[in-house]
């Protein structure tokens, strides 16, 4: 029983670590800022998720008590990762992109960085 539990925990730990490693590798291999953003926003979620699932299973199966702090960590991660990614993207657009490089917005108004919001 203990061996099986440890095996399952190890699988999640190693799986999570592999994704974290791939995410870091993406930072090195990819070329520009926007491409690099894909690595930490995706690969890291599953990396951290795998490690946290391993942590929950460890406390549940080996120590015998239920820990739900990990669910909170996942929740906060899912809430904050898109927002920080959005901010990095926006700073990148302001600093390094020009309006000509982006596709024009098909609506009445242009992109928020270049165009004034409609008067309300």
């Amino acid at each position, binding site marked *: 029983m203990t061996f099986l539990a440890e095996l399952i925990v190890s699988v999640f730990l190693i799986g999570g670590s592999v994704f974290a490693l791939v995410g870091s590798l993406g930072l090195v291999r*990819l070329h520009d800022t926007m491409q690099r953003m894909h690595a930490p926003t*995706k690969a890291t*979620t599953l990396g951290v998720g795998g490690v946290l699932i391993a942590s929950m299973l460890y406390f549940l199966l080996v120590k015998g008590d239920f820990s739900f702090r990990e669910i*909170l960590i996942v929740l906060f991660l899912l809430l904050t990762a898109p927002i920080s990614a959005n901010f990095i993207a926006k700073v990148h657009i302001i600093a390094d992109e020009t309006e000509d490089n982006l*596709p*024009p*917005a098909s609506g009445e*108004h242009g992109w928020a960085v270049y*165009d004034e919001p409609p008067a309300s």
Partner: protein
Amino acid sequence: MLRRLFPHPMLSLTLLLIWFGLVNAVTVGHLLLGGFLAIVLPFITAPYWPERPKLQSPWKMATYVLMVIWDIVLANIEVARVILFVKPEDIRSHWVDIPIDLESPEAITMLAGTITMTPGTISAMLSADASNILVHCLHTDDPDAVRDEIKSRYETRLKEIFPC
């Protein structure tokens, strides 16, 4: 009266559950303390949240969340494949302009967050009147297909969850 005391019942419930998670124990003492926070915090911050976000169907919301979690797993594998097996010179990244029909700010936020967490796409910016969303796609040959998939897979579901 009840509405004044609980301006945001869902927020209160979430705060209580988060409090249980933070202390990592469910006891009567923490129920009282967490319940106190769950009543006081939404009450104090109510002026900043004048309206209640309308949730049409909690059940649809739950299936949506499960679907997105599954998509996140697939997204991780897909992005890992691109990072590991596609030569950096061969990666074709695109900016994609997606017109959105959603109106409530909560729905647009959910859509932007979903796009960032799912297969090879990051939402970068909204247009000034929030009618378009600028998405960066890591590796695709067909930007139009990406746009159509996001619209059909996520936006239609969100439209049902958050009625305008």
